[in-house]
């Protein structure tokens, strides 16, 4: 049987001299009808470039195919080499035979056109449908991707829908004309983990319905387990390994594949939690940080005179304590209030109510700001116009110090400690990679000897193998300086590696808190279960995803609304979960925006 798509010796270069600026160096693979091929690699591996070369969108991104062929079996039985095809041919193939969905659903739809218009366009282009017929077809397409109330949603503009909804719309557009191949370029990377699970389940279901083939590009080898038939691993523009899914995952041949499988954090249901520095093993029992009844509300203003009509209950009664040398991970999805909690603890957000107590030892010490923070985006958290030296000096100057010999020696010591050399001091942030910048941010946070470091998604923006290194550095530093970490993250695999304790936060409230292994292995609250079930994992590859269409409830409450006081149930020495109201009684407000 001939392959539906056969790529051989594909070479792609960029710029005026594509031969000498090659990004993809001779990649070959075959895709059979109905098959899913996962292409796995880190940023710069050439995986996206390969994907964009197949439907030749790379031409519009400054790339040129410099060698090889991409042979597609057409619907009419003929075959076409896409590498040689002209633009007129390609416009007939794109959308009709090969479709594509992208990483950022928020920016991938035209902001000034309704989603209905954008779906209809596909039918107009390839099926010649117009007017009422096109509208009906668009509605069916939306129904097919399980968007409720499709007829009304057609009139929406992209900014009125959430990321997950928009990715469904993108899928509806891509599958409108029943293409035989769908290229999905990191389609779930920008989405929350439960939404990711929904999208993956939807893709799997649609694949079963239509029998299409799929090329799934991802950086997360854990993700491919549930959906792929074949896997191709890419590194630096070359396909270093390809084969059947089970063969690649269970018996990897290439060192890089092994690295991706073993060195990188993968979720394993609480079996890979830390064994060092557990609560109770250390002598000190006085918390480095204690938070009592933290509430953060933002007024919602309305009407002509801008009076408060309600409040967003971003954080609604959060308590926890944190011992020296301990990591408490706060886990939740976007909009859950986890970052607001961190920001409120540091005073970046005004808390409405609540008390913080900082450990006495830390508060008494001189010249110490007891809490420091490392932010998510290493590109945005360093001022691009300052040298590394000025950046590291800032906390010292802020607390009344000067850039003297002692400060300088501390700088070089810390730089060395985070794995950077002394000659970095006179350089600017743009000369460093993302991982190095995050190391700089860590060094800066340690300049003042803090007792608590708040890490807000501190490794989320990094490539997976860099992630592993930075996590390792964080653990070492924690042991060395007895640091207490408040680790904010959405990524269960990362949390499993670094947390001693975990607090799961949902709609501004902690729903479950306790020892990491216990929470991850035996989640008690329904939300925690849902969250953990959604995490893709290599050892759960044969489980099927279920589609859960429930949306995050709205956090907007009327003025003066107070939540019910929490009712905790204990499930062991250090494991509490909030008692849930019987199903149906909970006011789950669905909200698209």
């Amino acid at each position, binding site marked *: 049987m001939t392959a539906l798509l056969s790529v051989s010796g594909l070479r792609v270069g960029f710029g005026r001299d594509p031969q000498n600026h090659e990004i993809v160096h001779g990649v070959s693979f075959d895709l059979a009808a109905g098959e899913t091929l996962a292409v796995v690699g880190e940023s710069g591996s050439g995986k996206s470039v390969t994907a964009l070369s197949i439907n030749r969108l790379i031409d519009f*991104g400054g790339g040129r195919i410099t060698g090889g062929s991409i042979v597609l079996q057409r619907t009419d039985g003929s075959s076409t080499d896409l590498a040689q095809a002209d633009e007129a041919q390609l416009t007939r193939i794109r959308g009709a035979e090969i479709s594509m969905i*992208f990483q950022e659903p928020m920016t991938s*739809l035209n902001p000034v056109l309704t989603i209905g218009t954008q779906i209809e366009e596909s039918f107009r*282009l390839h099926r010649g449908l117009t007017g009422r017929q096109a509208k009906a077809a668009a509605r069916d397409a939306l129904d097919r991707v399980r968007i409720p109330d499709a007829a009304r949603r057609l009139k929406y503009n992209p900014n009125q829908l959430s990321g997950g909804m928009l990715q469904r719309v993108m899928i509806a*557009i*891509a599958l409108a004309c029943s293409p035989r191949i769908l290229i999905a370029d990191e389609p779930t990377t920008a989405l929350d983990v439960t939404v990711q699970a929904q999208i993956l389940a939807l893709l799997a279901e649609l694949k079963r319905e239509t029998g299409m083939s799929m090329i799934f590009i991802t950086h997360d080898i854990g993700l491919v387990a549930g959906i792929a038939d074949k896997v191709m691993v890419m590194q630096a523009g070359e396909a270093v390994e390809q084969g059947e899914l089970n063969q690649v995952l269970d018996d990897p041949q290439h060192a890089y594949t092994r690295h991706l499988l073993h060195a990188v954090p993968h979720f394993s249901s609480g079996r890979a939690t830390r064994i060092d520095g557990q609560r109770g093993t250390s002598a000190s029992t006085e918390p480095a940080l204690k938070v009592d009844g933290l509430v953060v509300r933002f007024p919602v*203003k309305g*009407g002509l005179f801008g009076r408060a009509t309600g409040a967003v209950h971003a954080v609604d009664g959060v308590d926890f304590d944190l011992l020296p040398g301990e990591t408490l991970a706060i886990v939740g999805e976007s909009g859950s209030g986890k970052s607001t909690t961190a920001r409120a603890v540091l005073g970046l957000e005004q808390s409405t109510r609540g008390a913080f107590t900082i450990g006495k030892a830390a508060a008494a010490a001189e010249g110490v700001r007891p809490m420091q923070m490392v932010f998510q985006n290493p590109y945005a958290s360093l001022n691009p116009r300052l040298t590394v030296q000025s950046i590291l000096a800032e906390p010292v100057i802020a607390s009344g110090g000067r850039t003297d010999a002692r400060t300088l020696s501390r700088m070089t010591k810390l730089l060395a400690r985070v794995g950077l050399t002394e000659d970095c001091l006179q350089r600017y942030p743009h000369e460093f990679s993302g991982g190095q910048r995050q190391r700089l941010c860590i060094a800066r946070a340690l300049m003042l000897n803090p007792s608590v470091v708040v890490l807000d998604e501190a490794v989320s923006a990094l490539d997976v193998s860099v992630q592993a290194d930075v996590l390792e550095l964080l653990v070492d530093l924690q042991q060395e300086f007895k640091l207490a970490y408040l680790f904010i993250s959405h990524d269960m695999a990362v949390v499993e590696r670094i947390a001693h304790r975990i607090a799961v936060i949902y709609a501004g409230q902690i729903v479950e808190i306790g020892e990491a292994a216990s929470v991850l292995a035996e989640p008690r609250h329904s939300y925690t279960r849902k969250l953990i079930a959604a995490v893709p994992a290599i050892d759960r590859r044969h489980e099927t995803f279920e589609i859960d269409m429930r949306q995050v409830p709205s956090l907007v409450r009327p003025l003066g609304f107070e939540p019910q006081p929490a009712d905790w149930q204990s499930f062991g020495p250090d494991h509490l979960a909030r008692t849930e109201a019987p199903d149906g009684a909970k006011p789950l407000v669905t909200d698209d925006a």
Partner: protein
Amino acid sequence: MNYLTGRLVTFPLVLLGVSLIVFIAIRLVPGDSITAMLGTEAGLLTPKQREALAAYFGIDQPWFIQYWRWLYDLFHGDLGVSVTYGRPVLDVILERFPLTLELALLSMIVALLVGVPAGVYAATHNEQPSDLGVRIIAMVGQSTPNFVLGLVIIYILSAGFGILPVMGTFTSIWQDPLTNLSQMILPAVTLGFAFAASVTRISRSAMLDILKDDYVRTARSKGASSRAVIWRHALPNALIPVVTLSGIEFSYLLGGAVIVEQIFALPGLGRLVLDAILQRDYALVQGTVLFIAFNVMVVNLLVDLAYATLDPRIRLGER
């Protein structure tokens, strides 16, 4: 609060502020208004007569009462009487306004008809010789003051062809559209040229940026042809900065066409202000300036409305 209601609520406030600025500015002009009104004859007045006159015009009152009275009159369409014309200020303004408005509209039409296609053309032929050509013309166009261009046009017509543009008496478009257009076309081209150059530059750079956007890639992945991508997906987005620019330029044309009106001897609002200032006809200056500022604000409001129609994100108050 919604974006547009926000604009509508602040509109009267800003208008009130503008009127206050004009009011104060006119009172800052050296010399009291009686002298200003009567010119040299004011020197013949006895102190008694002066007081009587001051009481008559209400200028013996504190400034806020004067301002209040002025505002009150304003609301009743009374902008005072022009000393030079001996007629109500509003009548004089309304007589001149159609010309200014027509000139501004014509220039804008010229600018958009030339500028947008030129910008799109240059963006889609990026870095090719034709793009370079468009860019050079646009650069020179943007750097040519309209009075220099106006003089050059007149010079070429008179020295090269021996024709002098029709000057002097202005014919309304309702009376005789052809004569009117023959009078207006040269000033409109003069004003529209630099405007067109700016439109070209901004639509080119907006288009270039947008062609790199994700949704353009999506459109291509659907199988839309390059033409459809440009006109259907990219252009509506590229028009947003063009609307901003057009709003600014149009406001400028409403009051700033002074020099071109001067060169082509057109009796527009700009020249009216200039003459009024030179002749110290302060009631007229005050009225005209306020009238123009009011129109500019209306234009700004229309620009905001245009945004809201073009970009749903603005309509929903996100930006």
